[in-house]
């Protein structure tokens, strides 16, 4: 088990290093941060001074290695905009983002999984078709369209809820629903197909032939097996808790990590962007690690000990 975790951690470190490198290259190739931050009409001397101050006059690979070295020491750099530590800038935005993504995750799970199970159990019924039509719609409509639609109906037409900002919990309702519905649709589709697959397995027939009542066949035999593929999707959703709300935060002017990312990218604020990407990569990797461990828990076939006699 330790070897398994160690190899996973090594792979995770490699993934994170690649993400950091990739972000560095893309951001530096797409424009000169000094020019962008100082403005197009800034005097050349000021721009040069900025470059020297931030080490931007060094050869690009020196910048890369000093940056990488700093990250290894836990120094994520300072924002080129206001000089504050990038890590502080990012972490103070996390609670706002989690205030959206955590309730949304709850909606996805509480709505998507039961809907998927119900649809699978009543395959080809009217309810199944309705659930699937809604799911396909939720699947294909982009979140900004859904968000704007909700704003149009509940904020503009009905005037029940605010259209943007973060002044009270009521401001969070529309963004949470926007995020939650889309994810619930994805999860419903996945759960349904996982359930259908399991319900067609011979061991379900065995359970029924044993005299197990249908309800217990579903809960005791089908669900534990269908959980295995469903966990993958939930794991992916957990991985997007930090950065999964970029679009929705923008639509609803919600001051979370996503908005910070949009602004930082526009400003070529390298340290902040890197910091966010690092955070995203870490949550993704952690979520994947948890999923892998859960697999072992859910599926005994994956935790076979070496040399076990068959």
């Amino acid at each position: 088990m330790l070897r398994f975790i160690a190899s996973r951690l090594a792979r995770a470190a490699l993934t994170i290093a690649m993400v950091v490198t990739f972000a560095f290259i893309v951001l530096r190739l797409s424009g000169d941060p000094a020019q962008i931050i100082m403005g197009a009409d800034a005097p050349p001397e000021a721009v040069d001074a900025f470059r020297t101050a931030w080490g931007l006059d060094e050869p690009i690979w020196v910048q890369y290695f000093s940056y990488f070295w700093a990250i290894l020491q836990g120094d994520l750099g300072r924002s080129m905009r206001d000089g504050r530590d990038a890590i502080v800038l990012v972490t103070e935005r996390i609670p706002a983002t989690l205030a959206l993504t955590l309730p949304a995750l709850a909606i996805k799970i509480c709505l998507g999984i039961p809907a998927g199970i119900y649809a699978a159990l009543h395959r080809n019924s009217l309810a199944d078709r309705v659930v699937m039509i809604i799911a396909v719609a939720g699947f294909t409509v982009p979140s900004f369209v859904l968000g704007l639609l909700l704003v149009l109906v509940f904020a503009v037409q009905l005037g029940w809820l605010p259209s943007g900002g973060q002044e009270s919990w009521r401001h969070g309702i529309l963004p949470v629903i926007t995020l939650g519905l889309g994810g619930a649709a994805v999860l419903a589709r996945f759960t349904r197909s996982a359930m259908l697959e399991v319900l067609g397995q011979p061991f379900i027939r065995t359970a029924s032939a044993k005299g197990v009542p249908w309800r217990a066949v579903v809960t005791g035999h089908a669900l534990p097996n269908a959980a295995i593929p469903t966990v993958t999707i939930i794991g992916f959703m957990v991985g997007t808790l930090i950065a999964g709300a970029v679009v929705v935060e923008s639509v609803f002017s919600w001051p979370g990590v996503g908005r910070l990312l949009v602004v930082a990218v526009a400003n070529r604020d390298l340290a902040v962007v890197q910091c966010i990407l690092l955070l995203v990569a870490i949550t993704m990797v952690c979520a994947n690690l948890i999923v892998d461990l859960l697999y072992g828990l859910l599926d005994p076939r994956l935790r076979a000990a070496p040399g076990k006699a068959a």
Partner: protein
Amino acid sequence: MPLVSLTGLSVAFDGAPALRGIDLSVAKGEAVGLVGESGCGKSVTWLAALGLLPNKARISGSVVLDGQELIGAPPAILEKVRGGRIAMIFQDPASSLNPVHRIGKQITEALALHRNMVGQAARSEAKRLLDLVGIPDASRRLDAYPHELSGGQNQRVMIAIALAGQPELLVADEPTTALDVTIQAQILELLKDLRRHMGMTLVLISHDLGVVADSCERVAVMYAGRIVEEAPISRLFSAAAHPYTQGLLGALPPMDGPRRRLAAIPGGVPEPWAMPPGCAFAPRCAHRVAACDAGVPGLIPLAASHRVACLQVAQVAMPRESVPA
């Protein structure tokens, strides 16, 4: 009085008939074989009897177990019958067991349902059952998962689960088809032993006449959703009357004697949605006459407990000396 009798049992899926009127009764303590090729309905018969078919199956006719009608019976009745009075085991033992539950749990589940046994009592009974079906080191195997056992051992576990409810009838649906030859022999011997010691009634479903001959006293041959011949096993091999049964016997490669060309039945089984108007076997039959297409022939008694569904039976059923097998 028979233990189970099936009368006019018919099943259709999406309008295509899978069973077209099965009449069969099974007496207490006997072993009946159900033989036929894929799609003939031999498995569907018992899945329908136990209400294990998907909802889209249209079932008619009657299945009576000890005076209790099973077709259309409420779930509570069927759940008591399944595993408790009629148990069933299936072809592919590896996928017939739940991969995420331990062997012990899958046995004790049946014990709890049919014998109200839980906890330590259930566990020691489960161990006894594993011993009974010949699984070595039973107490340790209770905590194993199906993937940790071989195919033959998994089929033994399936049998242990089936025995847990102390059923009167065991329906074994191709129990050895997925297994290696030497393991097939082990499982057939085990079924025989259990029958001897527990007086259990057995219905053995198989495509292999040899397997049935080995374990059963009586056999029903099915073709395209109907029973075409029913006879004691020795009589079937010495005096098969239906051209299809004769064809099946002729298709078996002999074990000894000169190597003759196999008497292959020409053509293939009719599709359920394109059934011939009369006898379903007529298009492949060497003895076909115009009358064969006029109507579906019913089972006619030929001798003591020998029935055959063939209009031409008077002409073609001259008992043959013996069939090399």
